């Protein structure tokens, strides 16, 4: 099985973030592999360990941080990495990324595309589904379990509105995974050392055989006008001390003050 895995460099959401004049203050931010993509990487490596899969990872993004992320994936067990780096993509949206990924897919011969269900910076949850539509491939999103039946068939489960949905998937296909599918392994020191020596194929749009126009850089479907700091909810009162007294007081307040009971 030949697997293409997509990973995105995203801002570390655990760090504080500030908005000034409609823009995010970038000082002090750090960048990491998107959490859901770590699950996609782990899924691919488990398939490789059990079923002899080939694993190729692609990340579209600028700079050193992307290479660090690819090397982290190498240290986890990914075999090959591609970075797509082109200044024309700096304002790309999900449709543009999907068209670039379409090009990457078409250059190889992949049986399965594994992606995160959502990027932590956009929280869109769109790119994988759009890619599948563009490629005319079947797609299951929000996947929490994959079982290989044979070379061209998978049993897949996803979280739906009314429970766990079970599907039979025929390859090639696009699957986007939820964090619940597995616990990504931590790269070991030895793996990190080896990863340093592994090559990364770096391509721009021209080398990928396309142009900014062809992937839609000039015709965005939407534009972010401004970022706004959300209203922060203020903590109210904290009650410490004798549990019996405190619980009674809070219940009274819920009835008489908050009118919530």
């Amino acid at each position, binding site marked *: 099985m030949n697997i293409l895995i997509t990973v995105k460099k995203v801002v570390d959401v655990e760090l504080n973030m500030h*908005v000034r004049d409609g823009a995010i203050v970038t000082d002090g931010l750090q960048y990491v592999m998107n959490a859901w993509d770590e699950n996609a990487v782990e899924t691919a490596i488990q398939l490789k360990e059990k079923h002899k899969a080939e694993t190729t990872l692609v990340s579209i993004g600028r700079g050193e941080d992307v290479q660090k992320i690819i090397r982290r994936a190498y240290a986890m067990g990914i075999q090959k990495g591609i970075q797509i780096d082109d200044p024309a993509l700096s304002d790309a949206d999900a449709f543009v990324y999907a068209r670039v990924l379409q090009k990457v897919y078409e250059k190889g011969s992949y049986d399965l595309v594994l992606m995160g269900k959502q990027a932590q910076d956009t929280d869109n949850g769109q790119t994988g589904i759009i890619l599948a539509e563009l490629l005319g491939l079947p797609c*299951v999103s929000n996947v929490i379990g994959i079982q290989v039946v044979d070379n061209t068939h998978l049993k897949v489960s996803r979280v739906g509105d009314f429970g766990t949905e*079970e599907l039979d998937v025929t390859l090639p296909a696009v699957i986007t995974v939820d964090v*619940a599918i597995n616990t990504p392994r931590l790269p070991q020191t030895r793996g990190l050392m080896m990863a340093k020596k592994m090559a990364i194929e770096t391509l721009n749009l021209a080398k990928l055989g396309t142009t900014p126009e062809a992937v839609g850089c000039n015709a965005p479907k939407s534009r972010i006008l401004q970022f706004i700091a959300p209203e922060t909810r203020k903590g109210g009162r904290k009650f410490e001390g004798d549990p019996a007294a405190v*619980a009674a007081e809070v219940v009274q*307040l819920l009835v008489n003050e908050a009118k919530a009971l």
Partner: protein
Amino acid sequence: MSKILVVADIKQGVVRSSTRELLSKAKALGAETAVVAVGSGIGGLVSALAAAGSDTQYLADDPSLALFSAGPWASCVVDAARRFEADMVWFGFSESGKAMSPRVAVRLDAACATDIIDVSFVDGAVEIVRPAITNKVLQRIRILERKLVAVVRAGAFQAASEIGGTENPVRLTPPEADLRAAIRNIVSDAGADIDLADADIVVSVGRGAKDAAGVALVKSLADDLKAGFGSTRAMVDAGFMPHSKQVGQTGKIVAPTLYIAVGISGAIQHLAGMKGSKVIVAVNKDPEAPIFNVADYGIVGDLFEVVPILKQEIQKVRK
């Protein structure tokens, strides 16, 4: 006049409140409204769908559509959108909506926005607001396409108390099944529990409850209150709670009148799912737990001591 197609949320033969909320917002924007409903045995819902505020009801009602399947269901929505010549297609907040919306957007050549909390017309263009980066920021976005497909965040729009609607059903031809991603079965993990999305009170349990006995204790509080019973991801991962009960960024977004967080630290991914609640109560033994930063009433204490007393006190006032 702009035309807005709302995709109906139907559960066990009932039109959910989100459908009316979305239609109310569409009417408040002065739009012409239609609704599309997909499923099996839903033919009897026309009057309920009209009463929810729609003036046309597109129905894809066929046994082949009994179980959700993103591809074919999206085809039904696309069919309705084309017939209605919709400028916007709105989904309620749901896993099915998240799965269908990008498909519909590609097929209609529309823009796509998930998780929107506001929509307005500014100088003839559509603008939306949505949270991003785990709720750390809001984005104000201008739509540059003629059409927009959007998923509306739970609780974003209020239902109007009075809303006009007329019965005008249109039957859609069911699409072909997706044989390459074939739905076989849906294993329901929620049973007959109160739905989190509809609950007026939600009690959620976190890792502080430790084990099955702790979960049962917190659940008994939820039962006393006739509340929805939710959970953090930690408790889902540990196997104590089903996926359908996870509250947060990757689970359900809830905005009840009262949210009671028991043994929950308050990670940003959990807060993303409940910060819109009207009143928040937290029980946590760590006075520094981040959940206290959003709680209106924070009880610092051991949940195994506090919850039984809360139950007693609530019984007193609820008699």
